[in-house]
C-alpha cells in the first residue's frame, strides 16, 4: 500500500504547513498590540543627548551603574509630582543609580525654568527631535525605564510615582550589587 | 465659445427620452405573435434597438462633451457616477442583445436605466472641479471599469427578475410572491423618491433649522422636503414651513431620514394605488409581458452576464481601486464601508458562480441570487454613499 502511505504523508505535510500559517496568522493578530515595543529583559537601546548645561550623556557610559531613565514634560502633572522624590533619591543613591531625565520636545527655556523651580540637580537631557522617545516607544508621559548595570531593562513603569517609597523601591532594584 | 456644458446637458436629456421611447418600442415588439424570443427580430424590435443605440450614442456624446467642459472624466460625484452607471446598463444590454436578440430584456432593462438616470438627477449636477484626492488618471480608469462591471451584472438582475416574474405562480399567495413583491415595492419607492423630490424642488421648498449636532455644537440644516422628522433640539427658522412630528437624536441625520421616510411613504401610497387599480400584484401585472421568452434563455443570460461581468467588476472595483488607494491614501485597503461593500459584492458573486458551476444551482435559485446580488450593488450605491457615511456624520 505504498501509494496510500505516500498520500497520507503528502496530506499531513500540506496540512502541517497550512496549520503553521494559520497559527502564525492568529499569533500575530493576538500579539499585534505589543509587537515592536520594548519589554523587560530587552537591551536598553543606546543613545546620546545633550543636557541643559550643554553636557553630553550617552547611555552606555552608565554601564556598571543602575539608571532611572525618565521621560517627562513640563506640562505633565504626574511628572511634577515625582520630581521631588527623584531629586531626593538621586542624592542618596549617587554613584550607584543615576537619573537621566529626558525632556520630550520642549525648549531650553522651559526645561531650565522647570529645573530652577523644582531645584533639580540631576541631568535633564533635551530630546528636541523626539528621536529617543520614538526609539523607546514612549507614549504617555511620564514613562520610566529602570535599567540594570548590565544595560538591560529591568522594568518599565508608566505613570507618575506618587510616593517616595515607590521610587525608592525602583532604585533598589537596579542598584549594582556590591 | 461653444457652450460644451450646455450641449452636454441637452444630450443627456435626449438620451433619457430616447431610452423611454425605446421601452415602448420593445413593448410593441413582444406583443408580436408568432416569434419566440431569440429567433429573430420583427419591425418593432428593430426599431427598439435602433432607438436604444441612438440614445446610447447621445449619452456617450454627453459623456465626452462634459469631459471636455470639465477637464476631467465626468465620474467625480454621485450624479456623474450614477448617470454613467445608467449608461453602462444600456451598454451591457446592447452587448447582450446582440448575442441573444431578446426584446423582452430591453423592455425591462431600459426602464431600469431610466429610473437610475432620473435618480441621479435628484443630486447636485453642476460641473465641479476635482479635489486633490481625485486628481489622478485613476479616477477615469477605476470608476469607469467598476461601473462597467456593475452594469453587466445589472443585466443578470434584470434577466433574473424576468425569470421570476415569468415562473413564480401568481394564482395564489406564497412566500415567493411576497418576496417578489417586496422587490417591486423597493423599485416603486425609488420612483416615489424621484417624484417627491422633483415636486418639492419645482416648488422650491426650503426650510432652515438650527440644531445641536452630535459633537454638541450648534449647526444649521436646510430641508428641501417638509420635515416629518427634525434634527436634535431643532428650531425651525423659516416661517410657515412644516414643524417636525418627531425629533431625532443627534447621531441620526434627520434630513436624510426624512427623505427616506418620504420615499417609503410615497412608495406605499404609489404601490397601494397600483394594487387597488389593477387588482393584481405588480409581478402578476407584468407576467403576461414575458410570455414569449424561454426561461432557459433567461437563465442563460443571467448566468452569462455574471460570468462576463464578474472579472470586469473585480478588475475595476477591487484591483484598480486598490492601486489608486495606495497612491492617494497611502494604503490599498482600509476597510472603509465603500471598500467593504465592494468586497461583499465580489464575494457574493464568487459564491454565485461556485453555486452555479459546482453545485448546479440553476433556474429559479440562480435568479433569486441575481436579484440579491444587485441589491448589494444598490446598497453600496445608495446606502453606503448617503446613509452610512451620512446618517451618522451629516455628509
Amino acid at each position, binding site marked *: 500500500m505504498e501509494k496510500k502511505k505516500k498520500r497520507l504523508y503528502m496530506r499531513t505535510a500540506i496540512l502541517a504547513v497550512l496549520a503553521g500559517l494559520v497559527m502564525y*496568522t*492568529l499569533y500575530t493578530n493576538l500579539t499585534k498590540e505589543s509587537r515592536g515595543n520594548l519589554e523587560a529583559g530587552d537591551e536598553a537601546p543606546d543613545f546620546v543627548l545633550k543636557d541643559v548645561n550643554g553636557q553630553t550623556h550617552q547611555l552606555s557610559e552608565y554601564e556598571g551603574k543602575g539608571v532611572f531613565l525618565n521621560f517627562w*514634560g513640563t*506640562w505633565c502633572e504626574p511628572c511634577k509630582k515625582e520630581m521631588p522624590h527623584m531629586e531626593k533619591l538621586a542624592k542618596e543613591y549617587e554613584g550607584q543609580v543615576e537619573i537621566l531625565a529626558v525632556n520630550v520636545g520642549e525648549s531650553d527655556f522651559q526645561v531650565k525654568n522647570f529645573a530652577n523651580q523644582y531645584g533639580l540637580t540631576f541631568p535633564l537631557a533635551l530630546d528636541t527631535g523626539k528621536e529617543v522617545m*520614538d526609539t523607546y516607544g514612549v507614549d504617555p508621559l511620564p514613562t520610566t525605564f529602570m535599567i540594570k548595570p548590565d544595560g538591560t531593562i529591568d522594568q518599565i513603569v508608566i505613570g507618575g510615582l506618587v510616593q517616595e517609597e515607590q521610587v525608592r523601591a525602583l532604585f533598589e532594584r537596579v542598584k549594582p550589587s556590591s | 465659445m461653444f457652450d460644451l456644458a450646455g450641449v452636454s446637458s441637452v444630450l443627456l436629456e435626449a438620451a433619457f427620452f430616447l431610452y423611454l421611447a425605446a421601452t415602448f418600442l420593445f413593448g410593441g415588439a413582444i406583443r408580436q405573435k408568432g416569434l419566440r424570443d431569440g429567433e429573430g427580430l420583427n419591425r418593432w424590435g428593430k426599431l427598439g434597438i435602433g432607438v436604444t443605440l441612438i440614445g446610447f450614442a447621445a449619452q456617450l456624446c454627453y459623456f465626452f462633451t462634459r469631459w471636455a467642459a470639465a477637464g476631467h472624466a465626468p465620474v467625480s460625484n454621485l450624479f456623474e457616477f450614477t448617470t454613467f452607471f445608467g449608461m453602462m446598463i444600456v451598454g451591457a444590454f446592447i452587448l447582450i442583445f446582440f448575442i441573444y436578440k431578446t426584446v423582452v430584456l430591453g423592455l425591462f432593462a431600459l426602464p431600469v436605466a431610466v429610473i437610475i438616470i432620473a435618480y441621479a438627477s435628484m443630486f447636485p449636477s453642476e460641473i465641479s*472641479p476635482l479635489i486633490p484626492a481625485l486628481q489622478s488618471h485613476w479616477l477615469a480608469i477605476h470608476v469607469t471599469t467598476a461601473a462597467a462591471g456593475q452594469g453587466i451584472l445589472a443585466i443578470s438582475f434584470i434577466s433574473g427578475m424576468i425569470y421570476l416574474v415569468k415562473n413564480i405562480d401568481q394564482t395564489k399567495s406564497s412566500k415567493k410572491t411576497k418576496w417578489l413583491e417586496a422587490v417591486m415595492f423597493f423599485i416603486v419607492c425609488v420612483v416615489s423618491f424621484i417624484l417627491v423630490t422633483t415636486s418639492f424642488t419645482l416648488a422650491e421648498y426650503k426650510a432652515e433649522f438650527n440644531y445641536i449636532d452630535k459633537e454638541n455644537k450648534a449647526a444649521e440644516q436646510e430641508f428641501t422636503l417638509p420635515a416629518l422628522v427634525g434634527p436634535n433640539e431643532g428650531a425651525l427658522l423659516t416661517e410657515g414651513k412644516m414643524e417636525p412630528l418627531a425629533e431625532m437624536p443627534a447621531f441620526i441625520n434627520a434630513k436624510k431620514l426624512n427623505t427616506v421616510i418620504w420615499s417609503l411613504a410615497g412608495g406605499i401610497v404609489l404601490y397601494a394605488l397600483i394594487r387597488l387599480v389593477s387588482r393584481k400584484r405588480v409581478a402578476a401585472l407584468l407576467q403576461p409581458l414575458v410570455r414569449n421568452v424561454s426561461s432557459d434563455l433567461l437563465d442563460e443570460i443571467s448566468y452569462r452576464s455574471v460570468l462576463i461581468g464578474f472579472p470586469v467588476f473585480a478588475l475595476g472595483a477591487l484591483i484598480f481601486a486598490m492601486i489608486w488607494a495606495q*497612491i492617494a491614501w497611502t494604503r490599498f485597503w482600509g476597510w472603509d464601508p465603500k471598500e467593504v461593500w465592494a468586497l*461583499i459584492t465580489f*464575494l457574493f458573486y464568487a459564491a454565485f458562480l461556485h453555486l452555479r458551476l459546482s453545485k448546479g444551482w440553476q433556474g429559479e435559485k440562480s435568479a433569486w441570487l441575481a436579484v440579491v446580488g444587485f441589491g448589494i450593488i444598490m446598497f453600496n450605491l445608495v446606502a453606503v454613499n448617503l446613509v452610512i457615511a451620512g446618517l451618522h456624520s451629516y455628509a
Partner: protein
Amino acid sequence: MGKVKCECGHINPNGTILCESCGRALTEKAKQEKIVDMRYEGSARRSQTYNKTIIDRVWNFFSSVKVGIWIIVLLLVAASFGTILPQEFYIPSNVPAETYYEDVYGTFGKIYYTIGFHDLYNSVWFSALVAALGVSLVIASLDRVVPLYRALKNQRVDRHESFMKKQRLFAEQEGTLPLSELEKVKEALAKKRYNVRIENGALLAEKNRFTRWGPYVNHIGLIIFLLGALLRSVPGMYIDELLWIREGETLQIPGTNGEYYVKNNGFTLENYKEGEDPEVFDEAINRVGTVAKNYQTDAVLYRDKNNELPGAEPKLTEVQADSIQVNQPMKFDQFAVYQTSFRQDEMKAMHFALTHKETGKEFGEIVVDLFNQQASYELGKGYKVELLGYYPDFDGFTEAGEPTSKSPLPNNPAFLFNMITPQTPDGEVSFAQIRNTMEPLGETTFKMAFKSLDTRDVSALTIRKDLTLPILAAGGIIFMIGVIQGSYWNHRRLWIREKNGRIYTAGHTNKNWHGLKREIHEVLEGTAIPEPEDRQKE
C-alpha cells in the same frame, strides 16, 4: 484498494469513476447513471476515496466546495457588520473608543464596542475566517487539479460507446462513417478553431482546454495575495508612521532608524477661485463654498551620516527635494512619503510691546518665539522684559496660584512677564494670555500689550514602507489572469465514432451549452452524422 485496470487496458488511479482513456464506467454507480457527472472528467477526486484518518477527514472538510461557499458567505456577512457603525480607525482621533461609541450611539454603541465590533477586521475570529478561506483554496484546488489534469491528458480519441451514451449531448443512428465524411467534418470543425484528431475511425474535436485551468490559476492568485497580506506582520516588511512637521522644521523620518530626515519648506493650501479657475466650475463653487484644489508640502529629504545613535547631532546631506501632493508621494529607498493632512495657522510667535498704561507710550517690542523662548529680552535704555514662565496651553491656576499648561502645543499661550524699566527697576509682574492680562502681584504701571501674531502651517505626512506590495500585485495579476482565462472561453469537445454499423455522436462543454449546441448544429448540418440531442431537461 489498488489501481483499477480498465477493459481497454489503461490503468487508472484508485477511485476513478470513468476510465481516463476510453471513458468506460468503472464504478457500479457510474454504470447505472443515465448522464454522468463530467465536472472532473470522472476522475478520482482524491478526497472522496480516502476518509479514514483524522488527516483525511480534515482534508475532506476543506476540500468541499460547499464548505468553501459557506466560508465565503460567512465572510461577507461578517464584513457587513463592520459597516453598521464607523470602525475605530475612522472615529475622531482625539477621543478614546471606550467612551465614544457609548456617548454617540447610546446602548447600541456600547454593545457594539463591548463585543469588539469596533475593530472587527483586525479581530482574531475575522482573521481566522480569512485563514480558513486560504486553507480551503489550497486544499480544494490541489484535490481537484491533479486528477483533472491526468484525465484530460490521458483521454483517448475513440471513447467507448458507454461513455458517449452517458453524455448530456448524445445521439446514435444506424449508418456507416466513411473517412471522407469524417474529413469533411474535420474541415468544418477546423474552421471553428477546433483541434481535431482522427484515430481508429473515431473523431475527437476539442478546443479551449486551457480554460479549464482558469479557476485553479485564479485560486493560486488569491493564495499568493493572502500570503502577501500575512507577510505584513514580519518585522521590517511594513512600516506605517505619521509625522507632523511644521513649516521650517527638519525632523527625523520615523521608521527609517534615524537614517533619513525631512524638512518642511512650506505647506500650501489652494482653493478653486471664481475668476481664476475655469468658469464652468463657478456654479459648483458657489453652492459648496470652498472646493480644495491642492494640498502640497514642499519637502527636502536629507540623509544623516551620523545616525548610529538616536539623539546624536545629525550631519545632513541633501538627497532630493520634492513637492508632496495628494496622489504624488515622495519616494526614496523603499519608502514613500504622502501628503495626508494638515493644520493651518498654528501659532509661532507673539509680538508684545512694553507699554506704559496711562500714557500708552510704547518702549519697545519683543517677539517671543513660542518654540524657542529667551529668558530675557533687552530693549535698551534700561528697559528689559524677563520671561518668568511660559505656558503653551494654559489651563488655569493651581490652588497655590501656579499657572499650568495641559500640553506642549501652543494652543492657548500664556506668559508670566517681569517688566524692568528705569521707573520700576525691581520689576513688575504681569501675566498675559490671549485677550486677557492679569496682575497677580498687584497693579502695575506697565503692561505687555499684544501687538501681533505669527503663524505657520503644520503638515501631516504619512511614511509608508510596504515590501509586501509586489507580492500582492503578483497575486492580483495572477488572479485576474485566472478569472479571465476561466470565464471568457468554453472547453468544448465533440466525439464521433462508428461501431458495428451504428454512428455515435456526443458533445460536452464545461459551460454555455446553448453555444455548443448551436456550433455543433452548424458543423453537422447537411452531413450524414446525427446531431447529438440534449438529454437533460430542466
